[in-house]
């Protein structure tokens, strides 16, 4: 059984009238890649700042490795942060930036240099030590911020949407590198993001935030395949909910149900698809979005509501799928892919 790196108990934070965090209980394990996922304003960044010590909670407490740190200042906590805009010191060289945590702790200069160089090598920036942050690209600055936060080997590394400012290609590359780096150094990573794909790609576990509360905590597979609430179902992956009348007529039950778009097959209306264990619904294609490798069909159901279906373009071309616009179709999926979610609050 691994130890608990971060424990949040009844954490609340209000700014005047605004409730940023409305009671969060959470345990993050040692060595875990833990993501806090949610839309902007969901309180995930505030939770991160509460762990770092930049904010003090209105109620509740923060424990790091079993020690209550609620009242401690940031410099008394064994956590380092990678800031969203990197927050590199512009008047220092890259090397001085990276060595800062060591200098503050009065590590001898020679050792400082060696460890800073090693940290820069870890993020593949050897030879950049003498430059200023302003002379680096966004991706390189991001790596410097990472090296600076890792060089002191903190118990927990907090990352506040660190990939947000990078372009898509670089972001995907950094996701893999971050994950590899985390495995290598074995430090607990707490990663804040609003990008569900990013969270699914990298995390051991994900906490989904909504309006200052935790909606669900679980592995990426749990979050994706068994969303605990309608919010999680719609925020992680494409919103594909069947409710009320349409649920009754298609599935034969009440309540709110979710189907992932890639589980749905799009057939001609005339096709007979009464395979056992399958649900089926007819409708009209409202929109066809050609995405290259896949095509997204938005279908207005006869029973009411709208479903999105995602199809691989195995043999179809852009012209083929365009012909579907306005067509009558039959949607079908296996019933085990229908997930019942608690009704939307």
């Amino acid at each position: 059984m691994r130890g608990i790196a971060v424990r949040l108990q009844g954490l609340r934070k209000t700014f005047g009238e605004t409730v940023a965090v409305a009671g969060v209980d959470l345990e993050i394990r040692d060595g875990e890649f833990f993501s806090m996922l949610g839309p902007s304003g969901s309180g995930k960044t505030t939770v991160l700042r509460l762990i770092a010590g930049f904010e003090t909670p209105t109620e509740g407490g923060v424990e790091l490795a079993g020690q209550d740190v609620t009242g401690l200042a940031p410099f008394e906590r064994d956590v380092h942060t990678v800031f969203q805009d990197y927050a590199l010191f512009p008047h220092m060289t890259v090397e001085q930036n990276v060595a800062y945590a060591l200098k503050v702790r009065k590590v001898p200069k020679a050792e400082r240099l060696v460890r800073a160089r090693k940290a820069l090598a870890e993020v593949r920036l050897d030879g950049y030590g003498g430059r200023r942050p302003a002379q680096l690209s966004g991706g390189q600055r991001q790596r410097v911020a990472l090296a600076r936060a890792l060089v002191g080997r903190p118990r927990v590394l907090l990352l506040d949407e660190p990939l947000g400012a990078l372009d898509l290609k670089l972001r995907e590359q950094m996701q893999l590198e971050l994950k590899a780096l985390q495995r290598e150094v074995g430090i607990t990573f707490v990663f804040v993001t609003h990008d569900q794909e990013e969270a699914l790609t990298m995390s051991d576990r994900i906490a989904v935030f909504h309006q200052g509360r935790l909606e669900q905590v679980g592995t990426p597979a749990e979050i994706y395949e068994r969303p605990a609430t309608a919010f999680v179902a719609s925020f992680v992956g494409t919103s594909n909910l069947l409710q009320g009348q349409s649920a009754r007529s298609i599935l034969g039950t009440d309540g709110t149900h979710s189907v992932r778009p890639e589980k749905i097959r799009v057939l001609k209306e005339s096709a007979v698809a009464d395979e056992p264990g399958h649900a089926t619904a007819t409708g009209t294609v409202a929109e066809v979005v050609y995405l290259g490798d896949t095509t997204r069909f938005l279908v207005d159901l006869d029973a009411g509501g709208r479903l999105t279906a995602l199809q691989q373009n195995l043999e179809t071309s852009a012209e083929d799928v365009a012909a579907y616009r306005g067509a009558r179709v039959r949607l079908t999926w296996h019933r085990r892919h229908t997930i019942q979610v608690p009704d939307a609050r």
Partner: protein
Amino acid sequence: MTAAAQTAEAAGRRSTGTVRRLAGMLHRRPRLRLSLLLTAPLLWLAVLYLGSLTVLFVSAFWTTNSFTSEVVKVWSADNFRALLTTPVYRQVILRSIGVALAVTVLCAVIAFPLAFYTARVARPRWRPLLVVAILTPLWASYLVKVYAWRLILSQGGLADWMLRPFGLSGPGFGLPAAVLTLTYLWLPYMILPIHTALEQLPDNLVDASADLGARPGRTFRSVVLPMVLPSVAAGSIFTFSLSLGDYITVQIVGGKTQLIGNLVYSNIELNLPMAAALGTVPVVVVVLYLLAMRRTGALSSL
């Protein structure tokens, strides 16, 4: 529509047409646009500003008829030689530079905590008000302020009265009084750039420093101070050059103290070339000071 209104409208359209054509022409000819815009100010700069500096410098090489005090246009470097060799002149020049440096250091020391308060401690909604409060003295007349200080520093004045309980007396009129008054006069010029720099200092740099384990003192020394220093240097350019050129304050509160400005003033009637030579001294010193400050990056934060 009446005939008169129609004519008026037609005239309006015609004039709009002319303006439009002119605007279009200027738009297509950026060089013409630029020269129309800049000719007057550049002429002003070249003729009046640089011209008068040149006249000042040239006339410093002339001499005077010692009986009639008339300027004799004979070239000689006697004036500059006198500046460097006469002990009184050397003393006054060094004293002036010393005063300017003292005022600058005092301003920086007083301005920093004040600016720190107005830019980072005070509530955001109060900050503009505090900046206005700092600037308010600049709206009052220079002479009024200096005479106010003369009253404060005079015998039995406010300074004496406040220091008496401690068994002390005010500095009276003299060099310290001049430094004190000049510090008061130029303080806003120091506060303002520091305030701006501190206000623009990103919060997350301070956060990042604390996050990496630095206590507030270390954060101040390693992050805040180095990032604000260029602005201190920028402010010092104002306090230094304004102090170096001042002569009225010294006359009013300085007692018998003489600075370069006083020597220029007293030479103007009798020995204009000498006054010119003396006048070039602050120009040269300030240029040297600017060159020194340029190395700190101060000029880009002006």
